[in-house]
């Protein structure tokens, strides 16, 4: 079922990522150039200038120097092996003081000729991720997109790796851009419209509107979205893959704005709730990354998109909702809406997608921020091998997670006097992240399942080498790596 976009709907695929070009020659003299170096491996010709700038090649070091032919040269330290960080740190330095010599075309050269392929890719990845720009709406002219020229020794050797990297970069950029969009611009319907752009890459896009959701019995998603003028929808992205019928199914929470509903949030900080769709955006980004490199893994993303508003016909605390799975849920707090929409999305996935594994991502709880802060997402699940693979993919990509428990007491807290389940517990000092995970577990219905609570890691408070302040794109790289490691082999156990 496809729908033609309405006038004014933006259906182009925007990523905000720098454009990349691969070249086999030397950087053009005079151009702003980044030269990544391992610790202690400074070329003789640069020894003096590096020493004067206090540059040793330590991880994360970046200095701007002038060398013969290169008046604007950035030396970036990788320590022993931190190549991605070298690329990111160099771009962070250039971001702080814009590269005049890049000219109006904003071209920056990366001199990667001395590096092995893996290191060259890592530097380029770090530089591109740090060079991402958010969608900007100002009257003043917006600077042109950055261009990164990758100078490598043997371009042919790198072609395939560059394709995979570009897929990941597009995925992260797509995700970040969606998360950065304000909620008046990215409503559930417009979010769905943007996802249609994935069709150009061979992804099928199905959008279930209110009528279809009613027919499916998606009472939870419909309740959450009920009071908003922008109705909810469920979007299903399918990348066919080639390795069989059993699919990796990603499930994302996509609250385009979360006021909390009748259990309304305090005013301070509420503007950040435009990012409450970061889970759905990460799933979409991962599908794009896999499609761009024609991954053999069959992957589906099921994205529950809605806006949570107070209103005269709003869903109330105390309401009992019949979910798509048939289970009834007693509402305690309308600001615990993420688990409701995920419940229906998970149940839909279980019934329609033949999942070999379910992985859901959601900016779900403040509790996980209290627990783990801004450096790791909370990981919950039922299946030890899947947990290990997700954890490993997180460590490998920098989307770090930490395994958290679902205990008997957490399950106990969800007992309702009048329904199958309570949605959460009330009172202060509740382990709400664990309660939410225990709640979601019911809807995975025994299929290997991992839940990532990404509240706290979806947004970067301050710019660092990984990116500018704003959306992190957390999860895209993790999911793409998970699919590559576990779901591309047709003979996987």
């Amino acid at each position, binding site marked *: 079922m496809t729908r033609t976009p309405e006038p004014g709907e933006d259906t182009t695929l925007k990523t905000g990522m720098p454009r990349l070009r691969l070249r086999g020659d030397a950087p053009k003299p005079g151009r702003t150039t980044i030269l990544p170096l391992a610790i202690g491996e400074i070329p003789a010709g640069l020894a003096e200038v590096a020493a004067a700038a206090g540059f040793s090649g330590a991880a994360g070091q970046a200095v701007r120097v002038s060398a013969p032919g290169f008046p604007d040269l950035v030396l970036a330290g990788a320590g022993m092996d931190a190549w991605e960080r070298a690329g990111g740190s160099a771009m962070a330095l250039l971001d702080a003081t814009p590269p005049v010599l890049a000219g109006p075309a904003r071209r920056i050269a990366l001199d990667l000729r001395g590096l092995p392929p893996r290191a060259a890719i890592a530097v380029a990845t770090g530089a591109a991720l740090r060079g991402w720009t958010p969608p900007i709406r100002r009257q003043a002219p917006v600077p042109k997109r950055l261009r990164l020229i990758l100078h490598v020794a043997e371009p042919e050797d790198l072609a395939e790796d560059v394709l995979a990297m570009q897929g990941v970069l597009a995925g992260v950029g797509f995700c970040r851009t969606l998360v950065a969009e304000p909620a008046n611009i990215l409503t559930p319907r417009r979010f769905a419209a943007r996802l249609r752009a994935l069709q150009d890459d061979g992804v099928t896009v199905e959008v279930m509107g209110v009528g279809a959701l009613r027919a499916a019995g998606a009472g939870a998603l419909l309740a959450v979205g009920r009071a908003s003028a922008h109705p909810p929808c469920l979007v299903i992205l399918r990348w066919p893959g080639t390795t069989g019928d059993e699919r990796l199914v990603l499930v994302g929470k996509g609250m385009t704005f979360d006021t909390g509903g009748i259990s309304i949030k305090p005013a301070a900080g509420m503007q950040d709730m435009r990012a409450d769709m970061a889970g759905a955006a990460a799933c979409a980004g991962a599908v794009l990354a896999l499609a761009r490199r024609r991954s053999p893994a069959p992957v589906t993303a099921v994205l529950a998109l809605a806006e949570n508003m107070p209103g005269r016909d709003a869903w109330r605390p105390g309401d009992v909702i019949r979910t798509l799975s048939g289970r009834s849920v007693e509402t305690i707090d309308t600001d615990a809406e993420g688990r409701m929409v995920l419940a229906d999305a998970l149940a839909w996935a279980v019934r329609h997608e033949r999942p070999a594994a379910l992985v859901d991502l959601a900016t779900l709880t403040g*509790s*996980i*921020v*209290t*627990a*783990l*802060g*801004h*450096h*790791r997402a909370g990981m919950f699940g039922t299946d030890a091998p899947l947990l290990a693979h997700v954890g490993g993919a997180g460590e490998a990509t920098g989307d770090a997670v*930490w395994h*958290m*428990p679902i*205990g*008997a*007491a*957490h399950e106990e*807290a969800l007992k309702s006097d009048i329904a199958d389940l309570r949605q959460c517990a009330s009172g202060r*000092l*509740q*382990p*709400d*992240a*664990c309660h939410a995970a225990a709640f979601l577990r019911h809807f995975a219905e025994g299929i290997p399942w991992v839940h990532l609570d990404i509240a*706290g890691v979806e947004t970067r408070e301050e710019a660092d080498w990984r990116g500018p302040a704003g959306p992190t794109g957390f999860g895209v790289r993790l999911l793409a790596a998970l699919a590559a490691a576990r779901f591309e082999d047709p003979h996987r156990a």
Partner: protein
Amino acid sequence: MPDIAFVKPTLPRGGALVLLLPEGAALTGLAADADEATAGAIARGIEAAAFTGRKAQTATLYAPGAGLARVVLVGLGKPAEVTPEALEAAGGTAWTAIASATEATIAADMLPPAEAARVAMGLVLRAWRFDKYRTTQKPEDMPKLGKIAIATSGVPAAKSAWTPLRAVADGVFLARELVAEPPNVLHPVEMAERCKALTKLGVEVEVLGPKEMRKLGFGALLGVAMGSEIEARMVVMRWNGAKKKGAPPVCFVGKGVTFDTGGISIKPAGGMEDMKWDMAGAGCVVGLMAALAGRKARVDAVGLVGLVENMPSGTAQRPGDVVTSASGQTIEVLNTDAEGRLVLADVLWYAQKHFSPKYIVDLATLTGAIIVALGHEHAGLFSNDDALSQKLTAAGLVTGEAVWRMPLGEAYDKGLKSDIADMKNIGGGRAGSSITAAQFIQRFIEPGTPWAHLDIAGTAWSTKDAPTIPKGATAYGVRLLDRLVADHDEDA
């Protein structure tokens, strides 16, 4: 605590009889004898009560015949799941059904004798009461049962299994009592006095006051104590039970804030009474030392507790004060309610300098954030040592005192950066604040010392009865650490 007597399996002539029954099992031994003596009343009762033997299921049959006042059936669950821990839980459950009886026998004749002792353990752990401050309680509200017979086919073996368990139970009770005591009674000076009682068990007890601690440079701990009328204490308890002398001891450190108002950064009034148990880490360490000494554990162990009261007053520490810890590192105190880590900083430093321990485990009711993270089932475990973490996790699984490992890392440590001192005592707000607290403590651990920090704020106190723990002080940690030592640190 009721007296436990292990007796031969003969059918009692009166009182209560407890039958422990796995799911789907036929009546054997004493249970079969009782059924026969009552002309099938037990079998009929099982059917009438739809008793299947499901875990924690109970049914009471009154006056079934043969002179018995009542027969209590306690379900053990599926035969494969009848673990020693499940037997303890059954013992605890049995207590609630027989506490009002005047005499009782528990039929444990179908269990190995050592497991009969575990039933006794669960029973006494549940039977513990803290009635010291009740003066008007009616006799009918008190348990009447003073003595319980446990019928076993191996009396000597059960007795020898029971002796060390009883010592551990005594340690648990001591810890529970210290935690349950009100803060006007149990202040730092009084708690130090009570630690001295451990000398009777052969523990060497040394008490340091403010003068000695000032000499040691305990600026962090003494800063917390500044606002209180009552002096701070540090108590060092040594149990030298190892056969081989001279090996480094194991070391346990407890936070002992006998009452925590928060100080000048005062807490909200609602629920502040709970802060009497802000010394539960110290209570656990004292109880643990009693348990180890009581069962004559073949280990050298040191327990240290830092005892202070955190009060607002004209002499109190202020937010913004900078103090110098015993390690020499300076601390900007931005929140006087993040006081536990200040106490631990100095005591941990002392422990390492004086004892060069094999490892250190500290326990503290440190952060509300750990409750938001994990709830009340697991304590938060933070450690610089994977092997120690695994041992603690394993010990937690078999004692029911579970831990869950939480992360540490440089990214979290950065939150402690201060503009004017080596560190501040809080990070930036609630985000990851249990981790930040652990990072703070880690700054006082010397590299190479295996260390684990248990944040027990969610597990030290319980608002609900559990099978072997009446609501209130849980003594969380005593059995966990006793088991850790028993499994890994004792001489052969």
